[in-house]
């Protein structure tokens, strides 16, 4: 990996739309930087690369990036991306989604994209809440967490999105955090290179809501949280209470949808 050099990254891959609408300290900016860093590493041609997002703070990322970009409807980014990819297979298609976008309203598209194994890469900006609408609980909100709709502590269990994607059939499943920037970037690189559907969970933050309501006002505290709770994946996935594994959690080979379709259906 080369040095960050934010200015060069911005010049090469961003539209003149900065600053972002994100709140001070929101890690969505860091995750986006890691993503673009990966794009540079991959040396993707922006003209042959399409970034697709849903609706949410995280999903606003596409507006800043100088590629073919689509800001779709809430939860539907993967479904749009499916059409974009199938109608023009030579495109590299990367999907940016929030945890709410990808796993609340968009949960069905997530599991079906995982199952179908079309060559897409999904990066979920996971901050455990619906930032855009004001910090309500999400399917990723931890039990006991305080949100604007669970002021006494959340009663549900969260999804483990990686486990879910894998069970649904995803052939590449990885997790990192904004804090583990280099690793995150590397995992995205590998995800894009992987032939088939790649799922990357990027632990992000929401200082304004999730942070403030749970004693982590600042973006820096959120980074510290990530550092302290993430543990490298050891091949078993078993981690101490409250911790979570990061790394490539699953990798397997399965026929890519378009390849099979072209050979077996069109080629028939």
């Amino acid at each position, binding site marked *: 990996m*080369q*040095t*960050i*050099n*934010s*200015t*060069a*990254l*911005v010049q090469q891959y*961003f539209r003149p739309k*900065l*600053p*972002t609408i*994100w*709140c*001070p*300290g*929101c*890690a*969505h*900016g*860091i995750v986006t*930087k890691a993503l673009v860093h990966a794009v540079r590493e991959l040396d993707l041609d922006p003209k042959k690369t399409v970034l697709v997002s849903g609706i949410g703070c995280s999903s606003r990322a596409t507006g800043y990036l100088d590629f073919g970009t689509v800001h779709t409807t809430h939860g539907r980014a993967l479904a749009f991306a499916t059409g974009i990819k199938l109608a023009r297979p030579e495109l590299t298609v990367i999907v940016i989604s929030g945890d709410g976008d990808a796993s609340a309203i968009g949960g069905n598209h997530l599991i079906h994209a995982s199952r179908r194994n079309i060559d897409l890469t999904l990066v979920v900006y996971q901050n455990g809440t619906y930032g855009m609408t004001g910090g309500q609980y999400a399917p990723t909100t931890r039990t006991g967490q305080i949100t604007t709709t669970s002021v006494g502590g959340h009663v549900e269990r969260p999804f483990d999105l990686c486990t879910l994607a894998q069970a649904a059939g995803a052939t590449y499943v990885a997790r990192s955090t*904004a*804090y583990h*920037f280099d690793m995150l970037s590397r995992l995205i690189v590998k995800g894009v290179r992987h032939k088939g559907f790649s799922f990357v969970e990027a632990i992000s933050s929401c*200082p304004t809501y999730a942070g403030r309501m749970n004693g982590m006002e*600042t*973006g*820096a505290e959120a*980074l510290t949280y990530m550092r302290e709770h993430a543990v490298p994946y050891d091949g078993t996935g078993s981690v101490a209470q409250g911790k979570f594994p990061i790394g490539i959690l699953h990798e397997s080979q399965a026929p890519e949808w378009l390849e099979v379709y072209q050979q077996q259906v069109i080629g028939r």
Partner: protein
Amino acid sequence: MSTSAKDDGRDVRQEQVLDLPEIAINRKWCKGCGICIAVCPQDVYTADRDGKPVIAQPDLCIWCERCDMYCPDFAINLAGKKLW
């Protein structure tokens, strides 16, 4: 890494090799979140009234890149060719 080695296939001697980065802060993009200040292991920065970083002790910088890496707003850039 040695200074005489080639890097990126180009002859490193043609570029200006530094042992300190040039830290550029884009105050328009900076939102004063304080991350750079908090993550800097060397206390290079202090905060101004808006929480935005002021380069207080540039010489202490060890070019660890954390501030550049973690600034969520692309507001810090470390320029220069690392010496090591």
